[in-house]
């Protein structure tokens, strides 16, 4: 097995990983940096983000407002120290991207333009048409090419995290093109592998979003935090799960049920007019909108489509010109997949799984509870999203905490001792052994896709917009059963070269671990908060007395995870009522 | 890459466009021969003129006219690709407009030439 020695290894070439790599390289040109990604960096799923990235920009806006929107949006489960740091640094990160060439949409006077987003009191979402994530990712990727100290391992799959005497010291990677294993030894490791949305059936995530990094850390003893909180995005394409960005509503789009009625006014988000209006109706937070859909479906007021129930996203008022200019991608998706021109007809939409709020717990310095390990981006639970992320906070997070991770890891690497090659080599051999073992099995057995689909269905059933104890228990059982079945799965492909079936099997292992953490965390949280809503008797309300804390799911060999708890950091905003629409407006008027 | 251009109608059209070149050269050579014979004296020139008046050469020239016309069409068709974007009142000029303008210019220039020759010449 080849060994590569570096100072900092970064797993993940999405927005967070690239931002970290640039920060580490810029902080010290002497550092050797390895950037590992299972796809070419510009294919990372950050590319799919459409709507925009938050940063307090307008004169009438303030850090205080962004802080409050984020904390209340997260149903007070946010770590407020992290939120404070976050809101303070969003703007400089967006400006930094601008200096690097990101083609932000502009106002006539040449300043950067901002748009409204769900749950945000004031327009503060920077955008580049409806290709924000795409432009951010390509800007970061291309800028990263400026730094010769960043050595990229494109299309290399990380299959294990190496830990020696309680500190992270490297990773094992597979060169996808050849199937060869290498060990990358490092003084600090950053995980930036993105979310885990593919654990669910209907989701907006790309095929690579399989929670690998979370599972890597989890298996090495790092507990996963707040995994029960999965965000459902209210406006997705039934069937494929393709996303129609929140910016559709930010620009003035409306949601109507089968009777053409703007049903959100029935769920504490009204009154409907005047429209558009911040933090009300269609610009309420995602969890509320998704929940409203669920109720409409119960009441039989949704529209039937070949891929299940839907409501209508009506963009016709925006007009042909604005649609083409601001939402070109949306028009394209609707036309190609649904044969609909949004200027002429409404688009059928439904909620789908979108964002993983939980993940590897990190402090304000992005340090995970394992020395030498840092995490940033969707795979991290940085503490800023709490029980429900606000749209456009995630892209900003990639930059703010990606940079911190790069700098902190670089700082740590300068002081840390060299990795222990001997001990790590044994671990790496083990990792290779178990990965190759999957290939060595005799033919026969179940198809991988069968297991994957069963997992995704079980997660949808037990981890939906609303959750019920018996269903959740069934899901836990199902995941355990699938974990047992996984080793007997049939892999028809025995090649070393580009064996994506084999990699998918390893990924499914990661997914099942993550799914297990999600299901058990959900079961343990006996209240309703943000994206975790229970229908069980007595558990339908938020319970701050008992559950104003983070869940921590710890991996247990052969058995359900142990669920522990940790304190939520509260600095200045005590838990309050989350109010939107008219109620929210009067509440804010009262506060002043 | 052998015979790659047969793979797609797009490439066949491209090759047809490129294939106009030898014909343009052929015409230039016909003219060149005329000029040289003019320099060599009246007899040589008359020979050249006579040759031009033969049916074979007239048919050949008629075919050349068509090929040149095709060249004109393809030349202005790729024009929008080869020139910097033209912005008129804040809007980028559509490719079709550029192609059309080019062909219109060719028609006008040709008409002018015809008028000059048919009515201006002695």
């Amino acid at each position, binding site marked *: 097995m080849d060994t590569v020695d570096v100072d900092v290894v970064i797993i993940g070439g999405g927005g967070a990983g690239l931002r970290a790599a640039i920060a580490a390289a810029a902080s010290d040109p002497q550092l050797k940096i390895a950037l590992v990604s299972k*796809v*070419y960096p*510009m*294919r990372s*799923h950050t*590319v*799919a983000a459409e709507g925009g990235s938050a940063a307090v920009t307008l004169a009438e806006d303030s850090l205080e407002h962004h802080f409050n929107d984020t904390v209340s949006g997260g149903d007070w489960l946010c770590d407020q120290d992290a939120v404070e740091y976050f809101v303070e640094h969003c703007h400089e990160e967006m*400006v930094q991207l*601008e*200096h*690097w*060439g990101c*083609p932000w*949409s*502009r*106002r006539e*006077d*040449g*300043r950067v333009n901002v748009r409204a987003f769900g749950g945000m009191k004031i327009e503060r979402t920077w955008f580049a048409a409806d*290709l924000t994530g*795409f432009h951010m990712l*390509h800007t970061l990727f*291309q*800028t990263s*090419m*400026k730094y010769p100290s960043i050595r990229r391992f*494109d299309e290399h799959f990380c299959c294990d995290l190496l830990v020696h005497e309680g500190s992270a010291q490297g990773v094992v990677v597979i060169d996808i*093109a050849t199937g060869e294993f290498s060990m990358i030894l490092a003084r600090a490791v950053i995980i930036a592998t993105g979310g885990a949305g593919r654990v669910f059936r209907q989701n907006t995530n*790309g*095929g690579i979003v399989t929670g690998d990094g979370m599972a890597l850390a989890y298996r090495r003893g790092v507990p996963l935090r707040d995994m029960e909180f999965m965000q459902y995005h209210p406006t997705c394409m039934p*069937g*494929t799960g*393709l*996303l129609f960005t929140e910016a559709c509503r930010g620009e003035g789009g409306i949601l109507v049920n089968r009777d053409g009625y703007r049903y959100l006014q029935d769920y504490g988000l009204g009154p409907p007019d005047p429209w558009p209006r911040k933090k009300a109706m269609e610009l309420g937070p995602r969890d509320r909108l998704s929940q409203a859909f669920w109720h409409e479906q119960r009441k039989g007021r949704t529209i039937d489509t*070949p891929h299940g129930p839907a409501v209508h996203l009506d963009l016709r008022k925006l007009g042909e010109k604005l649609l083409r200019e601001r939402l070109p991608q949306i028009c*394209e998706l609707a036309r190609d*997949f*649904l044969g609909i021109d949004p200027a002429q007809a409404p688009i059928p939409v439904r909620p789908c799984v979108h964002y993983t709020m939980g993940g590897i717990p990190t402090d304000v310095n992005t340090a995970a509870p394992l020395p030498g390990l840092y995490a940033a981006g969707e795979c991290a639970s940085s503490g800023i999203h709490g029980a429900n992320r606000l749209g456009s906070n995630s892209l900003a997070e990639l930059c703010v905490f990606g940079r911190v991770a790069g700098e902190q890891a670089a700082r740590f690497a300068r002081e840390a001792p060299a990795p222990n090659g001997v001990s790590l080599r044994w671990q790496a051999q083990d990792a290779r052994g178990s990965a190759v073992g999957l290939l060595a099995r005799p033919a026969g057995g179940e*198809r991988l*896709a069968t297991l994957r689909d069963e997992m995704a269905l079980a997660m949808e059933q037990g981890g939906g917009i609303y959750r019920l104890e018996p269903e959740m228990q069934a899901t836990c059982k199902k995941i355990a059963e699938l974990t047992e079945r996984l080793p007997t799965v049939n892999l*028809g*492909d025995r*090649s070393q*070269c*580009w*064996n*994506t*079936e084999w990699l998918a099997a390893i990924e499914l292992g990661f997914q099942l671990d993550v799914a297990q953490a999600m299901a058990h965390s959900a079961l343990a949280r006996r209240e309703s908060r943000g994206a975790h809503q229970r229908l069980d008797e007595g558990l339908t309300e938020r319970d701050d007395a008992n559950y104003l804390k983070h869940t921590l799911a710890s991996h247990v060999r052969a058995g359900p995870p142990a669920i522990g708890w940790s304190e939520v950091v509260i600095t200045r905003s005590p838990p309050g009522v989350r109010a939107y629409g008219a109620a929210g407006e009067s509440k804010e008027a009262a506060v002043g | *890459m052998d015979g*790659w251009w047969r793979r*797609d109608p*797009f*490439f066949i059209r*491209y090759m047809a466009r490129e294939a106009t070149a030898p014909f343009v050269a052929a015409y230039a050579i016909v003219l060149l021969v005329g000029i040289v014979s003019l320099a060599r004296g009246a007899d040589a020139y008359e020979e050249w003129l006579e040759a031009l008046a033969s049916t074979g050469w007239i048919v050949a020239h008629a075919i050349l006219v068509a090929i040149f016309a095709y060249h004109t069409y393809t030349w202005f068709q*790729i024009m*929008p*690709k*080869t020139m*910097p974007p033209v912005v008129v009142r*804040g809007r980028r000029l559509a490719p079709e407009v550029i192609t059309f303008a080019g062909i219109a210019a060719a028609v006008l220039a040709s008409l002018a030439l015809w008028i000059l020759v048919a009515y201006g010449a002695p």
Partner: protein
Amino acid sequence: MADTRKIVLEVLRYTPGQSTAPTLQQYPIEFTDDMSVLQGLQQVKDFVDGSLTFRWSCRMAICGSCGMMIDGAPKLACRAFLRDFLPGPLRVEPLEHFPIERDLVVDISDFVDKLGRITPWIEPREPRSLEQGEYLQTPAQLERFESFSHCINCMLCYAACPQYGLDSRFLGPAATALLHRYNSDSRDGAQAKRMELVNSEEGVWACTAVGYCSEVCPKAVDPANAVNQNKTASAVSWFARFLPGRG
């Protein structure tokens, strides 16, 4: 929409070390009208033949992974619909002009190297600190380069360009489009450096304005325009050398 129809996918298979030469394999599938070619391939991989190999991720025509030759033309598999290829069989092959790594996966490292050579970042015309905020750029200035920044690096244009196929030293459409994107950005000041590459023998001069690159581009980047505009720019700079006072 829920009605299913049948089509045969005829997919090129090649595994180094195992196959001596690429072969075509047929997979009959059932599909609904909203299904993309990518979904067809996924169906085969999931339930028929797990060894069929192709790249994909976003399935929404933005990550640029799934370029392949579909019915002889370079297309994104996630944005080509099976319904458009009836009655079939539908031929699916790896992108032209790139070495095959396996089945439908090709080696695009040549492009990634080229991308690294075009100085794909801003070298500021005037330095500006973060505290000074953003550079001003009017919508009109943005428009001058914006469409060229839409490139998703899907490589369809390289598969389309016969000149790249004939000689891969040619910088090619997408890299030139991105080069042009930076050269046309009001914030950038590294034009002279990039022009050296444009002017060189590997630069833009192999292009014969075939134009097919722009025809197949799924993002309307119009790389042919970028390449050919740069021919003009390069020609201007070629003659400018002879002007007095220009060295």
